[in-house]
């Protein structure tokens, strides 16, 4: 078994593990970590491809692709987290106004915020 195959296979395994986590787990943070693991799997595969044989310089193209890919993955994660914090702020407002009308205790909606997850359909 060649090292390139081992690295490439590990990349595909990482992709599959990340995909499983992305699909199965409901909280946003777990989905995002799953997505980043999927991305790492693909980058792993790219780095394995760059190997052209012992003693030869590696192929620069996959390295450039991985760098771009990392930038894209980081900005996508940031946008998802920003949207999620807006969502939590909207929920906090909603439960604050519910508190005013129903007179619920502060502890209760702190609990609500903990329990709340991003909505699924």
């Amino acid at each position, binding site marked *: 078994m060649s090292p390139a195959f081992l690295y490439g296979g590990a990349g595909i395994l990482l992709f599959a593990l990340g995909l499983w986590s992305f699909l199965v787990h409901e909280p946003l943070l777990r989905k995002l970590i799953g997505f980043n693991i999927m991305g790492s799997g693909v980058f792993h595969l790219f780095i394995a*491809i760059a190997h052209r044989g012992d003693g030869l310089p590696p192929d620069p193209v996959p390295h450039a692709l991985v760098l771009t890919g990392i930038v894209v993955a980081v900005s*996508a994660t940031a946008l998802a987290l920003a949207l999620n914090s807006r969502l939590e702020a909207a929920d906090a407002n909603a439960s604050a106004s519910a508190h005013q009308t129903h007179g619920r205790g502060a502890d209760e909606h702190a609990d609500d915020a903990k329990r709340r997850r991003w909505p699924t359909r």
Partner: protein
Amino acid sequence: MTSTSLLFLPVAVPLLGALLVTAFPRTSSILGVTAALASSAGGLWVTAQTWLHGDLGSVLGGWGLPLGIGLAADGLSAALLAMSSLVGLGISVYAIGYFAGSERCTHFWPLWLLLWASLNGVFLAADLFNLYVMLELLGLSAAALGALTGSREAIAANLRYLLVGLLGSITYLLAVALLYAGYGTLDIGLLSERLQPSPLAATALVLMIAGLALKAALFPMHFWLPPAHANAPAPVSAALSALVVKTAFYLILRLWLDLFPAIADAAAAFVLGALGAGAVLWGSWRALRAQRLKLLAAYSTVAQIGYLFLFLPLIQATPAGAARDDLIAACVLMAITHGFAKAGFFLAAGLVQQKAGHDRIDELGGAAQSMPATTFSIALAGAALIGLPPSGSFVSKWVMIGGAFTTGQWWWLIVIAAGTGLAAAYIFRVLGHAFGLEPTPRCFLTNARAELPAFLLAATSGVLLGLGAGPLWSLLGLSGGHA
């Protein structure tokens, strides 16, 4: 400067506009609409050059492939570029009035111009990795635009849209890595020459089409589209439904025709066609049952995307020649007609919603009757969605039905007939409310700047594209066109 070296204009002009609008938020409306005019001119200029000189290609900054960024325009990209330029201009003019006096204006323009740049980037990119970058840019700006209203539903729907888009594009990227491992190039032209039927290439095909079908909201992966499109502001809904979903379909068509002809077989085409049939039936049914006008339009998008996938088994079963060329051109015509029709429909629906303060279909009678031009726009766009003559989709459906007869795939005819019937039902359900007994105004246009973009887009889809479909065949460089 030759025409080839200016191929970057449709990407660079909106990108520059987005930067300027971000730097000077006080004048964002004026700057934004100027940038929109320039972007539209740039896109149409490239379409015209492709029309006159045939396929164009350029490598940015003189850096050769594979490290440089290559751009290419052929008939297919030029046709879609023309659609994004005209629909984009209509949406921009409408947006000035829609966002007037609102601080959302300063957020809309940078994101919208960025979205436009990445749309054109997808249409012009010549290699698989740049396509990935453009798709991601498109997904990020589209999700941010969709959440612009800031309401809880909009943010939740667009967070889901973002995640679905990320899943689609990372799957696509895995396929890109596999192809690079197997064939050592990312250029679409070179790759299609080297591609041999192999397990690797077949895996890459499945991964790419699956990832892109998720982004194109092909049934049953459409679940994210209706809430995301229905909760966005009207100009954004128009852009998402008319343009953004088309990019994923454009890529599937391009990969199918240019990259994977050696691997794509009738079974794969049948699976995609069957999913398309599911989309036509389910999307039209849900549109008929929808309570809100924008939700109806969003489900109608799901159905119309289904029609585009119905073309694939027909194209696959037809031998190369005039009949196959007709089918390809009809498929592109259908995509373009839907782009104009759905943009016009959403813009008009936004006006009705602003007037009435809600978009519940059953209570829209009065608002619709007080705006004759807007109601007429909805009717024209609706005629194109149903496929009534002389709309562009009538020509497309005509060719599609002919193809189904010639290739003996009669079962698609049932889907087309049922989908058309359901579309007529959901459009007339909306229009029925416009014929009540409320007093109607004397003038046709009540607010020209807001109503004209919707009207012109709808009229283009409902009349112009059907009567003037001939040039599309020559732009795509295809024979046939007797239909």
